[in-house]
């Protein structure tokens, strides 16, 4: 008589084998971070002991410490990003999004609250194409590495797929739309290996779409407020989402549920950005506090930023070569952090274009090489920054 195990072969290929290599990498990264923090800890303990011993030594030490700090600062201040070019009146409204072509580095795409998407040449800043079709402001963009497609999400609740080979056709370049969201779409991300599109927004659910058939493959429920950012990875956690409810959720795509919820943020999370090469992510909440996470375990690696101030972070960008983290604020403030140590390296402000009194930074990205920083702003300009 056939038993259950005979019928349903439990050694199923669908159950993945334990991924030992990624496990090892994860553990070593974690240990590295632990040891780096442990070193700091021992030093501070030693300092405390010596403080007990004598006051004079303590003062000397403070001096030494300050000298060391100043040296660190001198090292850090080598970074000097400055404004190179301004593309004035790039859009008719706020420019809210920017994405550089992830393969060729030749062009970049911007989305605006004037409901258009524009494609620009990165070197000459010449307009290559304008994509219209959305009826409300565009809030999310993703360029595919595999396909000549551009995906956009908008406040009009639609997610659309544009064929970049047809941007000049009179019929328009939209070839697919993904219907189902009941609120504005604030985040769109493409799975790096599977043909899946992950979207989320005001309706508090994450929807996973099959790109080709437009079918809604999954609905991931769990967040209690708007979803602000989505990151995808080829290894677990394949989908990471941040939400205005102050949590980050790591999703298990096989079981269609979140296997981990990170609740360390005390305020709503405005942004989360994954490091392009490491399995780490950085998130910023509405109190101006940044937190770094190690995935897939969700360990809190570091936290920095001046919390408690009314700093509204609007954009984050991570440059993997020099490990620079850029944060753009609503008041036009720009901060460059060292991604590893979390120390503030450079602070500047944007200059608003003539005709605007202030300019908030809505989106920013480094180009593929890390040579240029593009910021998109409330004065309808795109600004190009470069390092000295």
């Amino acid at each position: 008589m056939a038993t259950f195990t005979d019928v349903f072969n439990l050694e199923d290929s669908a159950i993945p084998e334990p991924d030992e290599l990624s496990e090892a990498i994860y553990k070593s990264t974690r240990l590295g971070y632990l040891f780096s923090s442990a070193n700091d800890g021992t030093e501070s303990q030693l300092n405390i002991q010596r403080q007990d011993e004598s006051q004079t030594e303590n003062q000397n030490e403070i001096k030494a410490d300050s000298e060391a700090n100043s040296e660190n600062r001198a090292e850090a201040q080598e970074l000097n990003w400055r404004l190179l070019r301004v593309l004035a009146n790039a859009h008719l409204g706020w420019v809210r999004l920017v994405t550089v072509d992830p393969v060729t580095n030749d062009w970049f795409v911007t989305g605006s609250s004037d409901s258009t998407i524009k494609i620009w040449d990165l070197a000459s800043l010449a307009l290559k194409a304008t994509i219209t079709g959305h009826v409300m402001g565009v809030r999310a963009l993703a360029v595919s590495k595999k396909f000549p497609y551009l995906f956009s999400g908008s406040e009009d609740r639609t997610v659309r797929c544009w064929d970049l080979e047809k941007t000049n056709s009179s019929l328009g370049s939209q070839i697919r739309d993904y219907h189902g969201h009941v609120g504005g779409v604030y985040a769109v991300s493409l799975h790096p290996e599977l043909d899946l599109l992950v979207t989320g927004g005001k309706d508090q659910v994450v929807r996973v779409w099959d790109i080709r058939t437009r079918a809604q493959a999954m609905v991931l429920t769990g967040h209690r407020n708007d979803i602000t950012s989505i990151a995808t990875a080829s290894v677990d956690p394949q989908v990471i989402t941040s939400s205005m409810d102050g949590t980050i959720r790591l999703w298990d795509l096989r079981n269609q549920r979140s296997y981990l919820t990170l609740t360390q943020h005390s305020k709503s999370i405005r942004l989360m950005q994954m490091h392009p090469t490491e399995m780490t992510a950085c998130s910023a909440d509405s109190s101006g506090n940044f937190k770094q996470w190690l995935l897939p375990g969700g360990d809190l690696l570091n936290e920095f930023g001046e919390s408690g101030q009314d700093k509204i972070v609007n954009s984050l960008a991570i440059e993997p070569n020099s490990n620079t983290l850029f944060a753009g604020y609503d008041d036009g403030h720009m901060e460059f952090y060292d991604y590893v140590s979390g120390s503030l390296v450079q602070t500047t402000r944007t200059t608003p274009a003539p005709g605007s009194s202030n300019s908030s930074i809505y989106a920013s990205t480094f180009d593929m090489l890390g040579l240029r920083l593009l910021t998109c702003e409330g004065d309808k300009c795109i600004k190009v920054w470069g390092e000295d």
Partner: protein
Amino acid sequence: MSNAHRPTWAPAVGRESKSGSRSFFQQDFSARTKLKFRTPGQGTEGEVGTRDLKAELARAEREALDKKRKAKGLPPLAGGHEGAGSGLMITEGEDEQVAKRRKLLEEAAALDADDSDDDEDEESGEKAVDKGKGKAVEEDSANEDDSDNSDSDSDSDDDEDDTAALMAELAKIKQERAEEAARLAAEQADSAAQDRDAEIALGNPLLNLQAALGQTPDSPSARSTATAAPGFAVKRRWDDDLIFKNQAVGQDDKPKKEFINDILRSEFHRKFMSK
């Protein structure tokens, strides 16, 4: 229009669609059943791996800048290129051969840029000719870029030949430059001799008193003093003894027109809303 932009107390929350029977409309089926892939030439990941993206970006930015300067009537920026090149010099990670090749190419490009600069300086008068020439130069440079790209793409077999050809080209350009420099030096010597003659003829203030006192008849200051000189009386304007002169000069009732980058803050919109 949708009302998604309006604030709501309880915005719509998405739910998992209930399982069970669902009816599908014909429109739900996709008209496009295939996915297009990025084909070679459109920037696939494989082909981009062989390209030197840093150099390409630097070159493209320089070309864009030069085009802009040309449109303004300025000579192309020669120094900018070198600065960008030095900024993007190869780091240790790259092949030595690749580095050598790129250095050669950059040197040749710099020399070319200098040459075109000189040409433009000479022929600034003949604009029509210049324009035609400029186009030709651009095409040339475009062709060169293409060849550069193909060079960098091609195998290492052609490297030797290419380097030899490049060296020959470089030598030729260098010779041309040397000739040009000699000609310029001769011209300079000529003009210097002329200046010296003039200095000898007019330089001595004792022989040329008028010039030394700055009373050359051509200079406007001299003319005014000459007209003022005959009578020593001070000339007065008719309104010199008035107290209140031209009171309305600084007042402007109309507010200054300012460019405002926002429709909602613009003067037109304000006026429109106050109607």
